[in-house]
């Protein structure tokens, strides 16, 4: 009989416990599912937490409208396979309603997800959103709670968070308020990949090395797509790349890589010298505090 859990077993046990606390304490939670690797880990955790029963919450995707089709196809296939309910709410709906106004046509829409998310929270009266954010991602996240309180405007107030001790999670809310629950807070990018390997989780194909038309712009690799066309004078190259995160096309950049399976990605992750967001999130580099700012505005 074993006496000690491996670090992955420990992280998994913690995440299951957190998800069951959400189910036990909240009356109308939802799990945010993008098709990305972190939210796929959440789905496996939810299976381990609640099967053979159904999930005590629906899944929801806040769609920016700028997606790689592979990811959307994958998302829909996964939901069918799990036989769970998926809600999709789109930033484009908010644009049609006039609640999101872009500054220019091809502006990155990541930050506007907050508005659509808050509208969906209102519409369905969700009292908790389960998300796949991790504390190692970014310094504004390092101080995030596992159950993070948001007021009725969806705002995160770093000075007014509930202290979180032991594994006692306070998810109590009044009507209109909201908890963001982060079951994989304590996971690192490496833990996520190791878990994907162990659980043999299927991922959208863009996570693995593939040939793609790109341009090099200000030190970043920008994929050539309809919404990110090359500018005059830029040279289009076709190289092997993979994505370390998936999100809105306009602000998610791939990295050069030949890692075409999980094993190779783990080796690359161990050797890489650039953080996940530093390499691939064009929007976080703009200001040192941009994640913190977005979280205050209701971002998850």
């Amino acid at each position, binding site marked *: 009989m074993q006496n000690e859990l491996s670090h992955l077993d420990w992280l998994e046990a913690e995440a299951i416990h957190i998800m069951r606390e959400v189910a036990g304490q909240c009356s109308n939670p939802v799990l945010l599912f993008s098709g990305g690797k972190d939210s796929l880990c959440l789905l496996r955790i939810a299976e381990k937490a*609640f099967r053979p029963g159904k999930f005590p919450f629906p899944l929801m995707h806040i769609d920016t409208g700028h997606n790689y089709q592979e990811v959307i196809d994958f998302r829909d296939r996964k939901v069918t396979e799990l036989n769970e309910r998926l809600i999709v709410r789109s930033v484009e709906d908010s644009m049609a309603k006039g609640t999101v106004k872009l500054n220019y046509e091809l502006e990155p829409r990541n930050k506007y997800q907050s508005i659509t998310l808050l509208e969906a929270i209102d519409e369905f009266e969700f009292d908790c959103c389960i998300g796949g954010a991790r504390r190692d991602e970014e310094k504004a996240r390092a101080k995030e709670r596992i159950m993070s309180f948001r007021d009725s405007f969806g705002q995160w107030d770093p000075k007014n968070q509930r202290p979180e001790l*032991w594994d006692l999670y306070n998810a109590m809310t009044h009507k209109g308020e909201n908890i963001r629950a982060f079951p994989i807070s304590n996971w690192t990018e490496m833990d996520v990949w190791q878990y994907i390997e162990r659980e043999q989780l299927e991922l959208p194909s863009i996570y693995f090395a593939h040939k793609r038309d790109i341009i090099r712009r200000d030190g970043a690799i920008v994929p050539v797509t309809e919404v990110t066309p090359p500018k005059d004078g830029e040279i289009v190259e076709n190289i092997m790349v993979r994505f370390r995160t998936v999100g809105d096309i306009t602000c998610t950049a791939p990295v050069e890589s030949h890692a075409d399976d999980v094993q190779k990605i783990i080796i690359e992750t161990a050797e890489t010298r650039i953080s996940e967001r530093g390499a691939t999130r064009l929007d976080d580099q703009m200001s040192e505090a941009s994640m913190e700012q977005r979280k205050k505005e209701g971002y998850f």
Partner: protein
Amino acid sequence: MDKTDSLLRFITCGSVDDGKSTLIGRLLYDSKTILSDTLNQIEKTSHKRGLSAVDLSLLTDGLQAEREQGITIDVAYRYFSTPTRKYIIADSPGHEQYTRNMVTAASTAQAAIILIDARKGILTQTKRHTYLSKLLGINQFVVAVNKMDLVNYDQETFNSIVKEYKALFDAISVNENNQFTINFIPMSALNGDMVVERLDNMNWYQGDTLLEILENADSQSTNSNLAFRYPVQYVCRPRDSENKELHDFRSFMGRIESGRIKVGDKIKSLPSNQESTIKAIYIGDQVVNEAISPQSVSILLNDEIDISRGDMLTELTNTPSITKDFNATICWLSEEPLNQGRVYKIMHTSKIAKAKISSIFDKIDVNTLSSIEANKIETNDIANIRIALAQPIMSDNYFDNRKTGSFIIVDDSTNHTVAAGMINNIN
């Protein structure tokens, strides 16, 4: 591929002046956790501030909101790994007014690193940090005598601090029954002496480096040796009419907070006191024969007994107390003082109960550790109190079991967590 196979959570106690941020930066840097874009950023900032070398303490620089106010508000969690272990550091600000942050950080830690500036020796805060760590049930201490480079790596300076600290430690009696390990290390976090690398400035020191000590410390799973405690979080009843097998399926979901369990074991459900035996244990859809703390599992019983969230499965003989009335030491976390006339809620394991503070015995001055008379309780106070509950909880004394001996107090007008408590005398 390196695989880590255990996990250790620890806290670092000290202030920026003791080199705490530098130490954390050093651990992350030497364990190659810091990635180049982050390093570039702090290099730039170091340059901007006119420093000649990279200031590793900038790695733990906080939120914009904190920088604006020039203070650290909160506990930050940081991660690094070695080939054999994953580490979670809870980094809390060290000053006296942040007692509540230190209590928060210590609540999940197995080990504490107490930082002492070699030039200054033992200070009031050393006593406070040691007391709070012991109070929260930490039993592994690493006393890091830092800035040895500023005392010419002098062995005598180190030895006298060790001697003085031992006396201090023995004088702080919170949980006398527990076994403690204390390691002392002379160190220069700035240069990297004895953090991850030994270097050769202190060849007179034969002990382990900080990382070696952390690698060998007792990890998360020590709870598996205690009595079986299984607070039920959620009851699974699929009631799937299409699947006959699931028709009568009923499992009790939770986390083994302590102990271990195997199929066939006799158990008791509290507070109802009904007995049954374990029919099956699941982790997801995987059937297992046994499970240990802190695994999250799903348990099926051989008898149909009524069990819901907030109940607890335990072994038959070594059972927790079912109590509505107990003494506890609390740390008041809220800006709003305790109102003794009010009814609060407590959260204990998976149970929520209404609570009143029936008596305040005394407060502890965290700097002198003396008992002071108290009639009110405010932010950062450590107080001994008596609590009366409307519904019973199943609890152990905190020093016997951190999971079933701890609770938080919630103000149900704001839903804020206003206090953290440790049960120390069940009647």
